[in-house]
């Protein structure tokens, strides 16, 4: 009967799909850690080195530090959090969601970033941008969301320090996290933006953008902290230690972080 052959085909399809889905099972065993988007490119390299050295794989979920912290509070199964500031890890420690206290593994920096082909002059006082706002030629300025992204907070502090916050505010385009803000600025969707140095140094961005390092004195220190969460297993604990060792520190330094003395 016709319906029978439909059923048979369905059965064959289901078997094929189960075979296709089986690789999921192996990946699903490795621990999940949460990391601020700003550390994405450095962490990818560190995770590869970690796999090379120990044979352990980890899965990484990237978002803004604030968003990840909220997810942890709402029960997300992360074993380790890498935050782009000290506030979120401290908050989780206060709420008894961590194994021990957080440690600072690096200091982050901000850069002014624009697409390679723009004629915009990048300078530490942002004077070229100031002129753009005065002449009405500033259209879009990208930052990460200051409500939950530490680099967005730092960007706001810089603009406030330079007295530009009020005039730039109407032109802000706010990324969900710093990687998205960098995407806006590097694609030309925004003329210019303030993002993390670590993102600007990503190979995929370097030849498409021009950047200028912002003096660290213009914002509060961007302490990159990490903390083990209460359900951390052996692999995550190993990775936590690995992140403090020479190889990881060298990779972090290459992505523009200043790493504390060993």
């Amino acid at each position, binding site marked *: 009967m016709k319906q029978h052959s439909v059923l048979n085909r369905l059965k064959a399809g289901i078997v094929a799909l189960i075979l296709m889905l089986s690789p999921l099972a192996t990946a699903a065993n490795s621990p999940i850690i949460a990391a601020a988007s700003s550390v994405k490119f450095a962490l990818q390299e560190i995770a590869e080195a970690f796999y090379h050295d120990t044979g352990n794989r980890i899965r990484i979920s990237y978002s803004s530090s604030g968003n990840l912290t909220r997810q942890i509070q709402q*029960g997300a199964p992360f074993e380790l959090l890498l935050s782009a500031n000290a506030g979120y890890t401290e908050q989780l420690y206060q709420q008894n969601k961590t194994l021990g206290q957080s440690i600072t593994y690096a200091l982050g920096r901000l850069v002014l970033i624009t697409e390679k082909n723009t004629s915009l002059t990048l300078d530490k006082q942002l004077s070229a941008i100031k002129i753009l706002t005065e002449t009405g030629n500033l259209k879009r300025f990208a930052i990460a969301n200051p409500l939950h992204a530490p680099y967005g907070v730092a960007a706001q502090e810089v603009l406030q320090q330079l007295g530009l916050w009020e005039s730039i505010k109407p032109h802000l385009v706010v990324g969900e996290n710093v990687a998205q803000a960098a*995407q806006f600025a590097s694609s030309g969707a925004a003329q210019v933006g303030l993002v993390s140095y670590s993102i600007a140094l*990503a190979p995929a961005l370097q030849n498409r953008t021009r950047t200028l390092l912002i003096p660290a004195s213009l914002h509060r220190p961007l302490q990159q902290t990490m903390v083990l969460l209460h359900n951390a297993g052996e692999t995550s604990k190993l990775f936590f230690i690995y992140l403090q060792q020479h190889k990881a520190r060298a990779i972090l330094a290459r992505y523009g972080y200043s790493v504390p003395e060993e």
Partner: protein
Amino acid sequence: MDWQALGLSVKLSLVTLFFLLPIGIFFGRWLAYRQFLGKSILQTLLALPLVLPPTVLGYYLLVIFSPNQGLGLWLNKTFGTTFVFNFEGLVIASIIFNLPFAIQPMQRAFSSIPRDIREAAACCGMSPAHVLWKIELPLAWPGIISAMVMCFAHTLGEFGIVLIVGGNIPAETQTIAISIYDRMQAFDNQSASIMSLSLLLFSMLTISFTYWLSERSQKKHV
């Protein structure tokens, strides 16, 4: 192409269908044949996901299943898990989100079966289950298939609700739509464009398949 994410999306779609097929047939048939008190309220509730922003549904699911309070706390204490930031959570979100996509086409399909046919079958001594299996389902088949195809495609494309309820966890809640977003933010435009193009083509195929199916069944009935 992120095969892991694609596999996860397909798995989510299939599991969603597994639950929605009986739910859709039950409610579709019930709403098609019966008049009862509160029918319009039920229909409103079932159609709600069509217009409800995914953020609203996501927010409520997070509140209901948060392990810090209420039902989520109880689930977590009793079973050691709750329905947020894992695959099971996505299944629940996906079922709710697809209710109208499953029920409405099935309801239309069951309504279009002439009443005399069902009554004639019953008069001939067929049991209700027999009528359903031998008469109604074969006649409503095109509507059921197109409902299932729409649900499948809609689940593949779900974004907001998956990101809110599931987070962005590789091999657990990182579906193909989330993977595209993730790849974009990693400046990996090549992967993003390959995956986007595949989903675009697949969506076009799905829509044309359902149109073809409904045209074919209309011709049959004329």
